[in-house]
């Protein structure tokens, strides 16, 4: 990083906004809810990528996940639509204004059951939207019934065992031709942060299935979407990081000389021509 001798002011991104400009209202979700961590990652990634918040349209369906757009990016328009049918609202909004960056926030109940039809067709169309599934395996707002992503054999708080196989939203998105599919964990700050930035840079549909534990209804022994289960089964396949693409930097210098080039992130590169 570049160093400076002047007094550091509030840190701003390349369009001159502070991270505060990306904040939203106070969350009303449960303390410790994975969804809040995802909201934080969205704020950080949008800030770091220098996305003008006014360009972003936040869209959601119904459920705990779908409430969360109220808790980040208060300077972006937002539409909390009907259950499972956010993709069509997002599609209409994007067709009306092609300069918008659409950010859809859904849940496993909202996507994999009532919304599976619209999810399928959103993936087919490959419109520029980041579609996040905050996946906790249960319906939170209606007090903890299984959703269609709950694993076979996983257990509810009430002791009920899930006897149906889960719908794998990532596998589904891939077979439908989605151009960016990822799965992460709300508790993996580093991985999710990189993935979110890559999502912002992608042109086309991004589908992120983010396991996001429900601390109230699905964080117990026997759950396969609890914090403990996720930590016990966290096996990173690779280190994911993201290098954003910026404008090309052209330099000209004579043979036998060298030149120092300042990169977009402030780092410096020394080049020597023989």
């Amino acid at each position, binding site marked *: 990083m570049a160093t400076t001798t002047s007094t550091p002011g509030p840190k701003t991104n390349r369009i001159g906004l502070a991270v505060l400009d990306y904040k939203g209202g106070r969350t009303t979700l449960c303390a410790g809810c994975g969804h809040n961590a995802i909201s934080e990652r969205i704020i950080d990634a949008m800030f770091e990528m220098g996305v003008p918040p*006014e360009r972003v349209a936040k869209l959601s369906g119904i459920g705990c996940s779908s409430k969360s757009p*109220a808790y980040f990016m208060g300077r972006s328009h937002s539409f909390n639509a*009907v259950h499972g049918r956010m993709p*069509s*609202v997002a599609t209409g909004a994007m*067709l009306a204004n092609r300069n918008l960056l659409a950010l859809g926030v859904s849940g496993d109940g909202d996507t994999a059951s009532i919304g599976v*039809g619209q999810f399928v067709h959103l993936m087919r169309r490959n419109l520029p939207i980041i579609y996040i599934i905050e996946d906790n395996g249960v319906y939170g707002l209606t007090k903890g019934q299984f959703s269609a992503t709950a694993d076979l054999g996983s257990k509810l708080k009430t002791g009920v065992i899930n006897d149906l196989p889960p719908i794998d939203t990532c596998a589904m998105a891939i077979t439908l031709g989605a151009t960016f599919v990822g799965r992460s964990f709300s508790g993996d700050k580093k991985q999710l942060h990189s993935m979110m930035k890559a999502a912002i840079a992608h042109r086309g549909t991004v589908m992120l299935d983010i396991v996001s534990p429900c601390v109230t209804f699905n964080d117990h022994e026997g759950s396969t979407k609890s914090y403990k289960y996720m930590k016990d089964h966290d096996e990173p396949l690779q280190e994911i990081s993201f290098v954003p693409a910026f404008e090309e930097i052209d330099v000209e210098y004579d043979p036998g000389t060298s030149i120092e080039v300042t990169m977009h992130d402030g780092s410096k590169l020394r080049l020597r021509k023989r």
Partner: protein
Amino acid sequence: MATTDVALHQAAGQVGPKRVVNNMSIQVATVNGSGSQSSNTVLLRSIFQMGVPVSGKNLFPSNIAGLPTWYTIRANKDGYIARKKEIDFVVAMNSETAQEDVMSLAPGASVLYDEPLNLSSLRQDLIFYAVPYDKLVAPVCPEAKLRKLVKNMIYVGVVAKLLEIDMAEVEKAIRKQFAKKVKAANLNLAAVQAGFDYAAANLPKRDPYVIQRMDKTTGKIIIDGNAAAALGCMFAGVTMVSWYPITPSSSLPESLIEYMKRFRIGADGKATFAIVQAEDELAAVGMVVGAGWAGARAMTATAGPGISLMAEFAGLAYYAEVPGVIWDIQRVGPSTGLPTRTSQGDILFNAFLSHGDTKHILLIPCSAEECFTMAQDAFDLAERFQTLVFVMSDLDLGMNNWMADPFKYPEKPIERGKVLAKEDLDRLGNFARYKDVDGDGIGYRTLPGTDHPAAAYFSRGSGHNEKSQYSERPDDFEKNMERINRKFETARSFVPRPEMVSNGKSKIGFIAYGTSHWAMIESRDQLRKEYNIETDYLRLRAYPFTREVHEFVKQHDRVYVVEQNRDAQMLSLLKLDLEAALVPRLRSIAHIHGLPLDARSVTDELMTMEGK
């Protein structure tokens, strides 16, 4: 049956001096998928080009090919173009229905039939003409597989000869129908000529029906309501259309696709619009809501089953206050019902579509002209009131051919409603999305993408306060719902006013709407001429009702509400709106059988209800 028609029918059967000029109903019975649509259109256009007012109604099955279909052409010198119950001239091409078609005719009617059907022995009181189509078609159409189609063009020639339709007009109609396909036009022309020549040589005229040149169609066009609606939407500036195929609405977006591809491609060669065939009606209306929220003029077109699916989104658009236009080309419900038949059966459902307290603006066109003009009205009202507007067309209007005056280029400027731009926000500092600043119930909105830190607001279908923040407070909820209702009350002064005919003396008033209008014009004339009963008439063009509707009911002892459904749906809406003392004045003439309303049914029922 009208007394004059009875006299005529009795006189027929033998060669009479009486000729019935420009007043007949021709029914062509064919098999679905046999290409009869082209022949029928040619026949219709030929009569139209002769200057005689005409309408064409297609009674078709929900099937691609093989089932019976009937096409009725009514030519009438007085301009009556509603369906007429009695058929004067049948062209029987379908062996499956021929017997029943013949048996249902009134005495004196004419039957033109395919010789092998051997119908003439069925009845003694009809006039029969037999034509050996298969023998005639072979020489004009060497290609055997085309004969089934070309055969249908032969009857056009026979009918032209019998009804004295000018062959030059038939040729003109064929050239128009086949446009650039010169070979097809020539082939069909030869078939028509073969029919004409056969009739000239073998079929001496024994029926009284003739078409004579008039000047009542000068300057008019023929168009179906869905194409007129599509043109209207294009001129109204629609930019986002989402739809899901359903009869009888599909031809509206399909026409629109053609028009937009022709007239709405930008200088860079790219489309300035988006038309999406959605995965279902849920998505179709969802896209409308998303696009309307983002500032586009957005629409979808559907029919009853689609409306059922759109109910939830309709409530969201109502409560989150998002503009959008939905064309409901009504067909017969409940459920799948009769998918290819007409009705006015979605009135009540659309008026209150969705759960909770919801009310929607309905516009009700009766003609191709109104399909065109109400398109702009619909978008203007939707954006002015930030709500959905339903245009209640029907299958009869949407899919059938209607005469119309050429559409005028819209004169009204487009009304975009209360939208704050960046500059407004610079001046105001901030805004509250659902605050009633002007006392008309309508708040100011901003569009996503507006480049101002205070532009954003949170749209939601859940409870909210005037700043659009989530709220479960009883006072916030009640205040908001009262304000939305105020918008609806304001809308009464902005929706299209009814059309009224009143002589100030009649005790009897009619209220009708949409395509029932055409039977109403004729029925009122029947009542005057046959029974000496004068009636007043109000044609509704919108819901909510304007004050004229209340006045009209006040001015009449008995008000008959005529409509094409079982449950007197518009009458029910009127009951909710009128002061209690006026409600007993309303009576219902409501029918639903899938066929367009005819005047005689209205006249007869009114006479019965009047105790005469």
